[in-house]
C-alpha cells in the first residue's frame, strides 16, 4: 500500500515536471530539401499547385458583345420604340450583370484614366476589353446620344431607380454644377499622366456606387454613395449630371450626335408636360438638349401625343411635321 502510494506520487510529480519542462518544443527544421517522390514512396505523385488563369478571352468577348448589344437595344428603345418600361428593364438587367455580377469592373468611367496613362506612358498598355468599353459608348454617343447613360450604365440605373420627388434645379445653377464634371475629368487626366509612382486612380478611389455592387468597400466610399443616393431622390441623377467625368465626354460628343431623342412622336403641343416630367433639366424650349439628355424616356410617358398617337389628324400635317 505504502509502496503504491509512493509510486503514484512519483508518477504525478514526473507528469507535472514533464508538463512544465516540455511546455513547448525545441523547434528545429528537420529537413533542408523537399523529399522526392521516391523518398515518400507508395507511388506518391507530387500534386500540381493550383494556378488559376485570368478571366478567359471568351468571357471578355462576351462582356464586350453584351455591352454593344445593350447599347444597341438602349438606342432602339429610346429613339425608335420609345419605351420607358423597356429602358427601365434594360437598365436593371445591365445593373445586375455589369454591376452586381461583374462587380463594376471594367467600367468606362474608370477607363478614362487607364486610356490616359496608356496614351502617355510607353510601358503601360490597356487590354482589349478596356479599349472596347471605353470607346464603344463614345461612338454610340456620336451616333445616338447618351444611350449608354440611359439604359446601360449601372450607376445610371441605381440613380434612376431612386428618383422619388425630383425638383427642377434652377437653370443657371444646373449649368454651373454641370461644369464640375469637367473639372473632375481634368483632375482625373492630370492624376493619370503623372509619373507612375505618383499616379492615382482617383475615379476608382472615389467611385460612389461600386461599393454597393460589391457589398463592401471603404466607409468613405459607402458614405459618399449613400449621400448621393439620398440626394438623388430629390435631384435627379446628381452623379451623372454634375460629377461623372465620362458623362462629360459623352455630353460633348452627343452635342454632335446624328440622331437624338425627339420628345413628341409627330406634332408638338405647347403643353410643356415633357419639360416638367424631366428630372434632369434636359428639356429646354420643349426640345431635348442632347448634351444633357440621358435618354431615360420619361418624357414620352408624359407626352399626350405619345399616349394617343393622333392618326385621326390630317396626314398632310404629319408629313409637314416629319418633313
Amino acid at each position, binding site marked *: 500500500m505504502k509502496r503504491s502510494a509512493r509510486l503514484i506520487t512519483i508518477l504525478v510529480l514526473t507528469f507535472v515536471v514533464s508538463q512544465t519542462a516540455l*511546455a*513547448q518544443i525545441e523547434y528545429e527544421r*528537420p*529537413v533542408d530539401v523537399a523529399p522526392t517522390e521516391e523518398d515518400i514512396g507508395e507511388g506518391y505523385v507530387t500534386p500540381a*499547385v493550383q*494556378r488559376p488563369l485570368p478571366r478567359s478571352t471568351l468571357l471578355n468577348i462576351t462582356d464586350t458583345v453584351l455591352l454593344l448589344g445593350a447599347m444597341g437595344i438602349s438606342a432602339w428603345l429610346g429613339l425608335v420604340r420609345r419605351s420607358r418600361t423597356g429602358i427601365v428593364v434594360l437598365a436593371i438587367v445591365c445593373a445586375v450583370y455589369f454591376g452586381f455580377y461583374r462587380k463594376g469592373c471594367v467600367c468606362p468611367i474608370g477607363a478614362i484614366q487607364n486610356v490616359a496613362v496608356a496614351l502617355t506612358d510607353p510601358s503601360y498598355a490597356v487590354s482589349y476589353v478596356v479599349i472596347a468599353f471605353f470607346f464603344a459608348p463614345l461612338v454610340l454617343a456620336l451616333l445616338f446620344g447618351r444611350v449608354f447613360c440611359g439604359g446601360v450604365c449601372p450607376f445610371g440605373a441605381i440613380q434612376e431607380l431612386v428618383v422619388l420627388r425630383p425638383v427642377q434645379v434652377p437653370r443657371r445653377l444646373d449649368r454651373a454644377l454641370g461644369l464640375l464634371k469637367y473639372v473632375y475629368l481634368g483632375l482625373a487626366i492630370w492624376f493619370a499622366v503623372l509619373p507612375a509612382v505618383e499616379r492615382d486612380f482617383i475615379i476608382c478611389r472615389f467611385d460612389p456606387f461600386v461599393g454597393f455592387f460589391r457589398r463592401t468597400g471603404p466607409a468613405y466610399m459607402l458614405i459618399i454613395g449613400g449621400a448621393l443616393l439620398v440626394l438623388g431622390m430629390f435631384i435627379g441623377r446628381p452623379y451623372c449630371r454634375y460629377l461623372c467625368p465620362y458623362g462629360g465626354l459623352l455630353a460633348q460628343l452627343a452635342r454632335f450626335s446624328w440622331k437624338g431623342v425627339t420628345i413628341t412622336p409627330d406634332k408638338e403641343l405647347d403643353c410643356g408636360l415633357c419639360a416638367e416630367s424631366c428630372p434632369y433639366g434636359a428639356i429646354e424650349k420643349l426640345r431635348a438638349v442632347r448634351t444633357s439628355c440621358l435618354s431615360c424616356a420619361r418624357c414620352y410617358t408624359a407626352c399626350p401625343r405619345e399616349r394617343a398617337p393622333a392618326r385621326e389628324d390630317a396626314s398632310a400635317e404629319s408629313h409637314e411635321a416629319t418633313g
Partner: protein
Amino acid sequence: MNHETTRRELLGHAVRGAGLLGLGGVAVYLTAKADDEGVWVLDTSKCVNSRLGATGIEACELCATSCVRPLSAVRAINDFEKCGRCYICPAYFDVTSAVDENGLPSAKLCPRDAIKREPIGWVDPDDPANNFYEYTIDEALCNGCGICVLACKDPSGLGSIRLEVRYDLCLDCNRCSNAAACPDDAIDRKPLSRAGAPQRHPAS
C-alpha cells in the same frame, strides 16, 4: 428642305466623321499597343512575409484586410515541389504553444484553420514522426493573411508557402487596394506573360 439645314447637316456630318476618325485612330493606336493583358501580380521576392532577411517580425496581414473582396483575392499557395512534408510543420503548428499528449504543439498557427495535414506515402504505423505529411491549403478558407508564409520562411521552413493573387478571384481593379496598402510595393500590374502564370489556353 432649304439651303440652311443642308449646310447644318453637312457640318454635322463632317464633325461626326472627324470625331469617329479621331476615336478610331486612338483606339487603333491603343489596340496595337495592347499586345498583352496586364494583371495584378504579387512579387514574392518583395513580399515582407517571404522576403529573406526580414526575420523576427510580425506577419504583414494587409493582403487579408485591404482587398475589396470580402475574402481577399490574395491566397496562400503551398508549392509542393519545395515543401519538406515535415512531421512538425512550423506553418501548420504554432510551435510556441504547449505540447499535447502526442508530443505535438497543441495549437495551430492558421487563424482560420485553412491548412490540412495528411500523412502521405508509406505510413509507419508505430512512429508518426517517421512519416511525411502533406500540407494542403484550403483555398476557400484562406484569406491571404500570410502568417503561414512568414512561419515557413527559411531558416525555420523551406519557404514553400507564398502568397499569390488568384486571377480568377481578382476583380482587376484599376487601383488595387492591396497594392496601395503594401509597404513593400510587392503587388504590381504586369503583362500576363511576365506574371509567372501559365499562358492562356489558345482555344479559350
